[in-house]
């Protein structure tokens, strides 16, 4: 119940739908029980009792009541649905808003698949329970209560004799439920792993074909395919075992009813019509009980779903704006790191340790070092995606947490190694950071990123819609669009995180030209593996295990007999050899 109480703010504003739904549910259930009674009166009073004048009244009354029931059913169901979908609309917006603001740290540990299943399956389970679960429980109680009362009214002994199978039915339902749910989970799991197999196979099809492992893959697929079939058949075995049994128990009640009830009619203890009515009422009790397991399961599932949703809603947003944060429209670009230490997890070793440096406005800072040396951490601290455990980071003399997040991040442009583009037009992708940008600005940004030519050559030009992850464009083209996106916001500080690594040499040349244009007058951080990308930086920081191992400009570092020089020699060995062979 705790879960539902915490989620109250999403559904309780719509309680009016819920109340209407329940009110009409009561009407519907009450009328349901009327049908057997009408049948009984027709047989006993009108036909056997010879009072044929009752017939028109009964017929019209019956039709009238059924029309009321129809209307009531409609209202009950529709308002129930409205209750669910209104709540879900609200819930989804809150979840989405939350997701927008959760920190990088949260996403480092989250898996897209898991988040997606919460946002889809769990939201759906929650809606289903709001729309049907609650009211189904109420309906169950009402139906059983009313049916029992009517049956008791007709004959107590007959009720007891007929419903003697009920405890057995309850046991069977209980056992069935206990077995069938794990089995269903088995099907879902098996389907999930089959899905993963196929997805991996298709995504890795080039690798499969290059090693001609098709037959091996087909065999692996078939194992999963067979497992899915087996799991499914295992579940249908459970159905085959219990479902006919439930039906048989229900039917046994019918047999008891006929035998004992028939006898009671013969000794004139009950009327024939009452016997017929009993037959209908019997099923009003049997069916809900057979379904009871389903409803209870629905409840526990939606409770679990609610918990998973709360986990997202209650996750901590680590990066929060200070009250009275300053808003600035542009930075000068003076960046200072003052004894900064960063640990990603509490027990992790420091990704950045006691790091200090200053970047003057308009200067280029190069960062080099092997994977995991802390290059990217520096840029993520600067953009405040993570906060330092110790030390201060300042821009233009102010600690960065004093700025509003909008003005901090809005003035820093980032181009990453693998550029993420959205399923949208090229135009919208370039103006992603400044949706209000005019077409001229967009074209200008594209021109400066050396992207205008190839974009104009596309049939739809700037209106070309990019598919999943920018399918249809080459790596270099995507990268240039990402650069245009960064240019479009006109940032004061630029971060190029290995921006040219995933493209071939010719494209790299194009992109470098574009970047040189963009870097003018902005404080720029370049992360790179190639000396060639860094040699004109004003200061190069060589990082090793989160510390600065060497610093200086290219000229100084080449003679420093350190890591930088070693890398330089490895990369330029080719060139020297080449030039020697060329001149000889």
């Amino acid at each position, binding site marked *: 119940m705790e879960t539902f109480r915490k989620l109250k703010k999403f559904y309780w504003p719509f309680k009016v739908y819920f109340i209407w739904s329940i009110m009409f549910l009561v009407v519907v259930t009450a009328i349901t029980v009327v049908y057997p009674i009408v049948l009984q009166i027709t047989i006993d009073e009108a036909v056997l009792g010879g009072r044929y004048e009752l017939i028109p009244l009964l017929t019209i009354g019956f039709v009238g009541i059924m029309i009321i029931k129809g209307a009531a059913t409609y209202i009950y169901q529709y308002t129930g649905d409205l209750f669910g979908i209104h709540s879900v609309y609200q819930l989804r917006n809150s979840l989405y808003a939350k997701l927008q603001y959760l920190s990088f740290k949260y996403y480092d540990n989250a898996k897209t698949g898991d988040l997606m299943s919460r946002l889809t399956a769990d939201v759906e389970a929650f809606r289903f329970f709001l729309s049907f679960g609650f009211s189904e429980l109420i309906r169950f109680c009402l139906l059983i209560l009313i049916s029992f009362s009517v049956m008791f009214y007709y004959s107590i002994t007959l009720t007891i004799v007929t419903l003697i199978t009920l405890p057995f039915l309850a046991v069977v339902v209980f056992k069935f439920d206990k077995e069938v749910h794990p089995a269903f989970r088995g099907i879902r799991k098996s389907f999930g792993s089959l899905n993963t197999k196929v997805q991996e196979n298709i995504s890795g099809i080039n690798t499969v074909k290059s090693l001609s492992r098709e037959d091996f893959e087909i065999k692996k697929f078939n194992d999963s395919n067979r497992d899915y079939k087996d799991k499914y058949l295992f579940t249908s075995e459970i159905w085959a075992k219990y479902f006919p049994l439930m039906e048989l128990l229900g039917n046994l009640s019918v047999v008891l009813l006929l035998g004992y009830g028939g006898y009671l009619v013969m000794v004139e203890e009950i009327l024939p019509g009452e016997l017929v009515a009993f037959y209908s009422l019997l099923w009003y009790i049997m069916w809900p009980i057979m379904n009871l397991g389903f409803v209870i399961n629905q409840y526990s599932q939606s409770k679990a779903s609610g918990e998973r949703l709360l986990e997202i809603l209650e996750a901590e947003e680590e990066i929060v704006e200070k009250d009275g944060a300053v808003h600035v429209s542009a930075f000068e670009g003076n960046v200072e790191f003052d004894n900064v230490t960063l640990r990603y997890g509490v027990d992790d070793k420091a990704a950045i340790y006691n790091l200090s440096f200053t970047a003057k406005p308009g200067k280029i800072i190069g960062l080099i070092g092997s994977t995991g040396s802390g290059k990217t951490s520096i840029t993520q601290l600067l953009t405040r995606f993570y906060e330092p455990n110790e030390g201060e980071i300042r821009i233009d003399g102010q600690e960065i947490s004093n700025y509003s997040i909008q003005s901090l991040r809005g003035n820093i442009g980032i181009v990453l190694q693998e550029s993420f583009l959205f399923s949208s037009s090229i135009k919208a992708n370039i103006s992603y950071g400044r949706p209000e940008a005019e077409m001229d600005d967009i074209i200008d940004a594209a021109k400066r990123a050396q992207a205008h030519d190839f974009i104009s050559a596309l049939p739809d030009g700037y209106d070309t819609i990019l598919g999943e992850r920018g399918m249809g464009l080459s790596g270099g083209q995507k990268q240039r669009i990402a650069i245009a996106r960064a240019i479009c916001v006109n940032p004061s500080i630029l971060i190029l995180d290995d921006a040219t690594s995933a493209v071939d040499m010719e494209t790299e040349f194009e992109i470098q030209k574009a970047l040189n244009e963009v870097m003018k007058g902005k404080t720029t951080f370049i992360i790179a593996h190639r000396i060639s990308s860094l040699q004109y930086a004003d200061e190069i920081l060589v990082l090793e295990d989160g510390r600065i191992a060497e610093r200086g400009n290219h000229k100084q570092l080449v003679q420093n007999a350190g890591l930088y020089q070693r*890398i330089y020699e490895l990369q330029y060995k080719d060139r020297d050899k080449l030039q020697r062979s060329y001149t000889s």
Partner: protein
Amino acid sequence: MTKHKHDNTANRFHYSTDLVIEKPFNWKQMLRLFSYILPYKKSLVPLSIIMVLINTAVRLMIPILIGVYTLDQAIVERDTSMLIKLVILIAALYAVSYFANIFRIRWMNELGQNVIYDLRKHLFTHVQNLSHRFFDQRSAGSILVRIMNDINSLQELFTNGVINLLMDMILLAGIFVILFSLSPELTLAIMVILPVMFFISTSLRKKIRRSWQTVRLKQAKLNSHLNESIQGVRVTQSYTQEKENMLYFDGVNKESFESWKEASQKNAMFRPLVELTNALGTAVLIWYGSSLIGNGISIGVFVSFAFYLGMFWEPISRLGMVYNQLLMGMASSERIFEFLDEKPIVSERENTIELKEVEGHIEFDKVMFSYDGKRMALNEINLEIMSGQTVAFVGHTGSGKTTIASLVSRFYDPDNGRVLVDGKDLKDVSISSLRNQISIVLQDTFIFSGTIMDNIRFGRPSATDEEVKSAAKAVGAADFIEELPKDYLTEVEERGNILSVGERQLISFARALLADPQILILDEATASIDTETEVKIQKALKTLLKGRTAIMIAHRLSTIREADNIFVLENGRIIEKGTHDELMNYEGEYHDLVKSQFNMLDAI
């Protein structure tokens, strides 16, 4: 201005939602679909049908036994022994139906699942052998959807649909015959509700289903956006577009909400209408039926009618459902057959030669090739690669480097000319025996989820653990693997994100080494790797190339320079060939290319 702003928000993202969910009925396709049942026509099909028939018979008999016999002849006549006999008979029938039900559920599910299993297996096997072009033209997601979802949507049709169709028709006909024999005039009177029921079951249901489809489409759009916004959240936060995205999401969410509201509204009409129709039937029964009691029908017949009336809806409802399943099945099966009709571009001749233990001598003899029939990708290529040689292909994107490699592994056949391995035309050779001799090391190697061990073993599934380890050692991958938490047994996620680009390269080298091919094709990675790793890769490459014929699509000068022979390609022609020194002295295109690379480095 506000309108402009609104447009901007709504057009922020585009998700294609043009998936057709249903198609008109098509006999030819239907027959093709049902050909998957044929293997079971002598086993599961007749067995299921027999069980269904037994079940249907019992269900048809019970109401007469209760109404006409028990009520009229036993109870009204006060015949106790008759009552006992009837009760026993009914109990026995229920028992029969109990057993029939067990087998019905078992066999029908077996039938359905076997058909689905076969169909999926067929589709996957077929797709697996399709060409690269097939995969290049489609997103992975769209292929996945056909193998998984489209096939699953046929599941219900094959498990229950087809056989229920039979059962329901028999049931309806049975009820009709029985009722007619009990009282023709009352039967005719009650039949007025049948057209209404059919209308609700087919037409109204179709409308309802369509509106649910709209809901699903909107939902799909919403999900696509959610998925993308999670994956792109770092970009969004970098550009502080959280609020703008929330505005967009609210729009999508509202669309979904509206469609849902509309569907619920239509859906909520369904049950009341069905019940009202039933009530109409009951009203006819009460009014007209009770007037017939005494002159034509007995009280028992009256009761039997009441029972049968309650039984009408179920089969009609199910028929409507099957009809709808069929329409949806048409759309799914059309998409499935579209894939199945896709021909592998390279087809095998009969009586092919098995290639065993090739030397690795490769020859191109006047090879012409075009992907689209318009632009020549390769134009009269003549070349020879001696066994054990390493050759490099150099040229701009689209010059034909990759095409040459694809023809050697016979992913395509040349339009003209011949490709020969050890003097044998590849067209005469069995594809699998050829590919067993060739390994390709891709620049974007795929890491499957599983252990590192399994990933390396992918090169040769029969390799022992020891062989895997020594392959890893030989290419210098052992160092980083042994530093992982569980070394070779470390689980890597899909796409291998705990491994760096360089480490993935080394794994793919180990794979290739394990496969031990005579011919090796190497599509060199362009992604820059930190320099220390690059040195390791160069070393590993030497180990890998030893004693094999190697074709390299190279980007790095250091790799190219080591080649025994370099081919420079332009627009599908070989314009220069020779060793590095020869080509440098020749001062042609290669010379310019090399020079421009260094000039470029200087320009930055």
